[in-house]
């Protein structure tokens, strides 16, 4: 962990003092609704302004030095994405992704509900940095009103040179994928399109499009104020900063927390009050994430490097604690079925592959038989063959389940199951009628 002395941070009055405190994005105490524009400015100060190419390049370089990576799940280096979009010949456009289609994750909704101005700052700043004149903020229905209110506040205060447009996202898991989001904004169809070309080259109306998760934009808004060194005062050298996580399942106080990257996973669980029951497994990252044995994963730092020891990564910031008396295979089967149903339905290997895999897992979970060779073949035939990474993520999650729940698979083969409560720890929305 790389912690700088607070003496080395710029001393600039009350805002700076508050900035050094933690948490950075979330309020110290929940409740009381979103921070108003006034509250936001008094906590964080003004967003830096600037014009021209040199200012933009300097800011992008600072973001590069800060080492900020995307907080939407893919962890792509933000500065590189900014440079790619800024470098195109046409006028770019910025799309802030607050759709949070992952059912178990709540961090983006909570961030938008508590600190919408921080996200809007980031969106406006990103627009300045790539030379765009418009920032489209697509948010989950649950927080639409709050974000509308914040945008209206800013308009009244004539705060931004950039036009902010707020939209509601589609209620669709794949809707958060970059090209699907562009497709949704452009013509109301939340389905991925074939890439190449990437959206950063040719996205909305053929223009270079920056698609960035709202949490990433919030971090961006703070890096612009306080610099790379401040940002790096938390986290690890390779993965600096703080990150929002959603903790669900068998923990005493489930919810969204802001944590320092690199914090041991057991401590992360501790921030949610610790396990509420003996744990059987952890699902780390999201529904595209990785199952892990709590005993093995507990001491690991919550970072891409640390979690790679169990084949996982922070992903979308979900940590789901599965109690020992709920069957992990049954949970996996439920999620696999959900992911299969949520396929955009455009690519055969995804539709058929995930469907077959979900069927096989349902059989396995219900003790109706298991053909490992066939399932392995299907997983190999499904991953990497869709237009987006939906099938890849689903297969990754299933692979980890088969590895972690090995003993349980043997038990199921003999007709036994350790689950004493029905599955349901991982939320799965009811199946949409076609």
């Amino acid at each position, binding site marked *: 962990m790389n912690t700088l002395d607070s003496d080395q941070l710029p001393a600039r009055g009350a805002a700076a003092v508050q900035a050094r405190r933690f948490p950075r994005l979330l309020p110290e105490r929940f409740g009381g609704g979103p921070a108003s524009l006034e509250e936001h400015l008094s906590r964080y100060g003004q967003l830096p302004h600037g014009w021209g190419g040199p200012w933009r390049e300097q800011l992008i370089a600072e973001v590069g030095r800060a080492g900020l990576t995307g907080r939407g799940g893919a962890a792509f280096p933000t500065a590189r994405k900014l440079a790619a979009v800024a470098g195109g010949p046409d006028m770019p456009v910025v799309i802030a992704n607050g759709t949070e289609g992952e059912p178990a994750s709540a961090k983006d909704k909570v961030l938008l509900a508590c600190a919408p101005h921080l996200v809007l700052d980031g969106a406006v700043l990103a627009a300045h940095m790539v030379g765009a004149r418009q920032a489209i903020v697509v948010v989950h229905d649950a927080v639409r009103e709050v974000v509308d209110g914040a945008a209206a506040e800013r308009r009244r205060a004539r705060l931004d040179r950039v036009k902010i447009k707020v939209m509601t996202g589609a209620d669709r898991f794949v809707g958060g994928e970059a090209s699907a989001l562009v497709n949704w904004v452009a013509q109301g169809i939340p389905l991925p399109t074939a890439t190449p070309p990437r959206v950063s080259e040719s996205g909305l109306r053929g223009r270079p499009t920056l698609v960035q998760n709202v949490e990433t934009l919030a971090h961006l808004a703070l890096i612009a104020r306080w610099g790379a060194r401040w940002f790096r005062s938390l986290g690890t050298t390779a993965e600096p900063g703080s990150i929002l996580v959603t903790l669900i399942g068998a923990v005493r106080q489930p919810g969204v927390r802001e944590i320092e990257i690199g914090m041991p996973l057991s401590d992360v669980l501790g921030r949610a009050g610790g396990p509420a029951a003996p744990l059987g497994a952890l699902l780390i990252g999201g529904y595209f994430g990785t199952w892990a044995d709590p005993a093995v994963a507990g001491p690991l730092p919550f970072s891409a490097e640390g979690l790679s020891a169990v084949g996982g990564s922070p992903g979308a910031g979900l940590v789901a604690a599965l109690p020992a008396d709920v069957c992990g295979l049954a949970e996996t089967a439920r999620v696999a079925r959900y992911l299969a*149903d949520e396929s955009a339905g455009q690519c055969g290997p995804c*539709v058929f592959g995930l469907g077959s895999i979900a069927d096989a897992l349902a059989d396995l*979970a*219900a003790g109706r038989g298991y053909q490992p060779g066939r399932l392995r073949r299907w997983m190999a035939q499904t991953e990497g063959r869709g237009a987006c990474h939906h099938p890849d993520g689903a297969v990754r999650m299933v692979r980890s389940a088969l590895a972690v729940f090995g003993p349980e698979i043997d038990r199921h083969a003999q*007709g*036994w199951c*350790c689950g004493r409560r029905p599955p349901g720890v991982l939320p799965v929305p009811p199946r949409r009628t076609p």
Partner: protein
Amino acid sequence: MSAVAATGSQGLWFLSRGSGLVLLALFSVVVVLGVATRTGSAPRRWPRFAVAELHRTLSLFAVALLVLHVVTAILDPFVTIGWAATVLPFASPYRTLAIGLGTLAVDLGGAVLITSLARQRLGQRAWRAVHWLAYLAWPAAFLHSLTAGNDLGIWWVALTEVASAAAVAAAVLARLFSRGRDGPPEPGQGPGPSRAADPRPAPARPTARAA
């Protein structure tokens, strides 16, 4: 002299009608093959690419035969059709409606042909939209064959007409009722058992889980 001219004219007339009948049969086979590439029937005996290529080859052959059919009809001094009627529907003084239907079939078929030759450049959507016109071109050709000729009394002419209509009708019905690959089916309808309800645990036995 006039006998020779009359024989020549008779020759053109026979050639025109004969090529017309063959053309109808050929066009019907082309339509059936076109449907077959879509519904993909019997791929084991007939590779799909063979069906597709045959469809293409026969349609090009039909174009050649069509040229013969049209030219002999126009050149025939016995009837006045006029060159304009080759592309302008209902421009023929002789049997305006009947010939007009033929012209319609040529126009529609011509559009299908040109777009198919330029498919790679046009893109899938444009090509497909125009290709649907084939389902209009065939009935136009069929009606033309019924009304423009006088030969339905001959048994094998009538047979050809009936067989062609039956083949195309069967193909169209097969297309309508098959699950022909219009796109992957709805998720959940793939191979394997239909979507089970939430899997319930097998009879449970309190098994202490390894910590």
